[in-house]
C-alpha cells in the first residue's frame, strides 16, 4: 500500500481565526487522500484506455521477437470485414433484444407480486433474489446439466406441451443453444432488476392510486396509468443497463456449450471473439480494435440512456 509512510500531522494552519471555513487549507491533505486512487486510476483505467486505441492501430502481438509496426486502420478493416465478428455481434443483439424486454417484464411482475400486502411476501422476495448468490460460472454449470437431453428443462417442456416436445440437447443445437444462454441469464439477473423496480414502486405516492380509484379506474388501468409512468425512470435504467450488459456476455457462452461459443458459432459473442483473438491467437492489435468497437457500442448505449433519463427530468 502506498499511503502509510505519509500519514503525519497535517499543516497546522487553521483553528486560530474564526471557524475553519469549509475546511480551507486542505490542499496537501487532499492530494494525500486522492493520490493512491488517482495513481491507480491513471495506471489501470486511463492508460489502458488510451492504449486500446493506440494498440488497435498497430500489428502488436503478445509475445513476439518481431517489432511492432503502425498499420493504420487495417485492424478495423480486418474486424469489420470478418463474418465471424458480425455473427458474434448479431448474437449479442439478438440476446439483448430478447433479454431486455423479457427480463424487465418478468422483473416488473415479480416486483408487483412481492409488493402486495400479503403474508409471506418477504420470503418470496428472498427466494426470487436467491440466484444472485450464485456467480455466473457456477449458475451456468448447473444449468448445463438441466439443459441436457434428459434434463429438467425438457421434462418441464414435455409436461407443459402435453408430450409434444421431444427432448433435445439444447446446448448442442444451433437453434436452442442461444435460447438456453438467454434463460440462464434471465434466471440469474432478474432479481437485481426486481429490487430496483420494487424500490421504485414503493415511491409512487399512494394519493395517485386513491385518485385513480375514485375515478373508477380498474386495477389494470391503475397499473398502466399510475404505476408504469411512476416508475418510468427506473424502467429505462434497468432496460438500458441490461442492454449494456448483454454486450459483455461471456461467462455463459464459455461454460455452457462445447466448444465455447458453439455449436457452429451459435453462441459466439463479441467478448469471446475478443478474448480468442487477443489471448488465444495473441493478435493484440486486432483484439484492441474489437475492444474499441465494443467500447463505442457501450458508449452510445450510455448516451442514449442519459438522453432518455434527462428528458424525464425536465
Amino acid at each position, binding site marked *: 500500500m502506498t499511503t502509510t509512510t505519509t500519514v503525519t500531522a497535517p499543516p497546522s494552519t487553521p483553528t486560530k481565526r474564526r471557524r475553519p471555513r469549509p475546511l480551507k487549507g486542505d490542499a496537501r491533505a*487532499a492530494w494525500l487522500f*486522492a493520490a493512491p486512487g488517482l495513481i491507480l486510476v491513471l495506471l489501470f483505467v486511463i492508460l489502458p484506455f488510451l492504449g*486500446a486505441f*493506440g494498440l488497435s492501430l498497430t500489428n*502488436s502481438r503478445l509475445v513476439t521477437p518481431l517489432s511492432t509496426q503502425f498499420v493504420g486502420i487495417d485492424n478495423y478493416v480486418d474486424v469489420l470485414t470478418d463474418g465471424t465478428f458480425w455473427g458474434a455481434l448479431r448474437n449479442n443483439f439478438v440476446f439483448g433484444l430478447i433479454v431486455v424486454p423479457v427480463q424487465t417484464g418478468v422483473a416488473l411482475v415479480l416486483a408487483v407480486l412481492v409488493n402486495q400486502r400479503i403474508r409471506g411476501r418477504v420470503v418470496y422476495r428472498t427466494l426470487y433474489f436467491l440466484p444472485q448468490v450464485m456467480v455466473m460460472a457456477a449458475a451456468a454449470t448447473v444449468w448445463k446439466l438441466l439443459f441436457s437431453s434428459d434434463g*429438467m428443462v425438457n421434462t418441464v417442456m414435455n409436461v407443459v406441451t402435453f408430450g409434444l416436445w421431444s427432448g433435445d440437447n439444447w446446448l448442442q443445437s444451433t437453434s436452442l443453444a442461444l435460447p438456453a444462454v438467454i434463460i440462464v441469464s434471465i434466471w440469474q439477473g432478474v432479481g437485481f432488476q426486481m429490487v430496483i423496480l420494487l424500490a421504485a414502486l414503493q415511491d409512487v405516492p399512494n394519493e395517485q392510486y386513491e385518485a385513480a380509484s375514485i375515478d373508477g379506474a380498474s386495477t389494470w388501468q391503475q397499473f398502466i396509468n399510475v404505476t408504469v409512468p411512476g416508475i418510468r425512470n427506473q424502467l429505462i435504467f434497468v432496460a438500458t443497463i441490461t442492454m449494456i450488459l448483454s454486450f459483455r456476455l461471456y461467462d455463459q457462452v464459455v461454460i455452457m456449450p462445447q466448444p465455447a461459443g458453439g455449436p457452429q458459432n451459435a453462441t459466439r459473442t463479441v467478448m469471446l471473439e475478443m478474448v480468442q483473438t487477443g489471448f488465444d491467437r495473441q493478435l493484440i492489435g486486432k483484439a484492441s480494435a474489437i475492444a474499441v468497437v465494443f467500447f463505442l457500442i457501450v458508449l452510445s448505449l450510455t448516451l442514449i440512456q442519459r438522453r432518455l433519463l434527462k428528458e424525464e427530468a425536465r
Partner: protein
Amino acid sequence: MSNNTATRGRVGTPRRVKVLNYTVMTLLAIFFVFPVAFAFAGSFKDDAFVFADAGTLQGLVPTPFVGFDNYVAANERISLVLAFRNSTVIALGIVLIGAVTNSMLGYAMARLQWRGRMLIVTGIVSLAIIPFEALAIPLLYAFAEVGWLNTFRVQILPFIANPFFIYLFYTFFLNIPKEMEEAARVDGAGPIRTFVRVVAPLAKPAYASVAILTFLFSWGQLLWPTMVTRGESVRPLPLALQAFQTSPPLQWGAIMAFVVLMTLPLLAVFLIFQRQFVEGVASSGVKG
C-alpha cells in the same frame, strides 16, 4: 412498505384470486430455487445419479447419499482448496485495499478544498462508463511486457481503484451532515484524523455496499483470470470450475460439490447482511 399499489391484497379478495396469486408466486419461486437446491442435493449424492436424476424431482433428493465423498473427490482432482484460497486472497485484496483507496479519493472529492477538484470529479464520472472488458487487452499486453502474468498482483491491482465506487463514496460523503466534521476540526483534529474518527464511521453503509458488491464481482470473475493465469498456483474458483468440467471423466457429483463450495461464501454474506446485500446490488449496474 406501508402504503402503495397493494390494494389487491386487502381483506375481501376472492379466495380464487388468492389461490391463483399464491400458485403463480410459488411456481416462480420453484424456478428460482430449483437449480440452487439441485446443486446442493447433487453434491451429496452418487455421481452417476446426479446426471440420471437431472430431469426428475429425484434430483432434489440426495440419495444414494455419499456424505462428503464428492467434495473429497473434487479436491483430489483439482485442488479445490487451493482455488478457494486463491479466490479468497484476490477478493479480500481487492475489497480491503479498494475500500480504503476509493473512499479516500471520494472524500477528497466531496469535502476537501483543492485546486483541480472539479476536474477530478468530472473525470471520475466520465471514466465510470468504461467497462473493464474494454481495458483487458491493453492491460494483458502491459502485464505480459513486465512479466507479471500468473501472479496475484495481476489479478488484484487493476480492480482496486474503481471510478464507479469512487463516485458512490463521493455522493455518500456529499450527503452526510457537515456539523460533526466541523466540530472535530474546531477541536483541532486534522483532515486525516477527522476522516478516520468521524467520517468513516458515519459511512458504514457505503462501505458495506461497496464491499459486498466488490466481493460479488471479484468472486465471479472469469474473463480476466482466463487471460492472465496458467496452471493451478494462482487460479481462482470460476476458472478452476471451468477447467474441471472440460477435462474428462465428467464427475457431476464432484462438479456440484465445487459449485456449492463456490456459492457458500456469497450465501453466507447474503444471509448475514441481507439488507446491505440487496441495497448494494440495487445501487449498481456493475454486476454481470
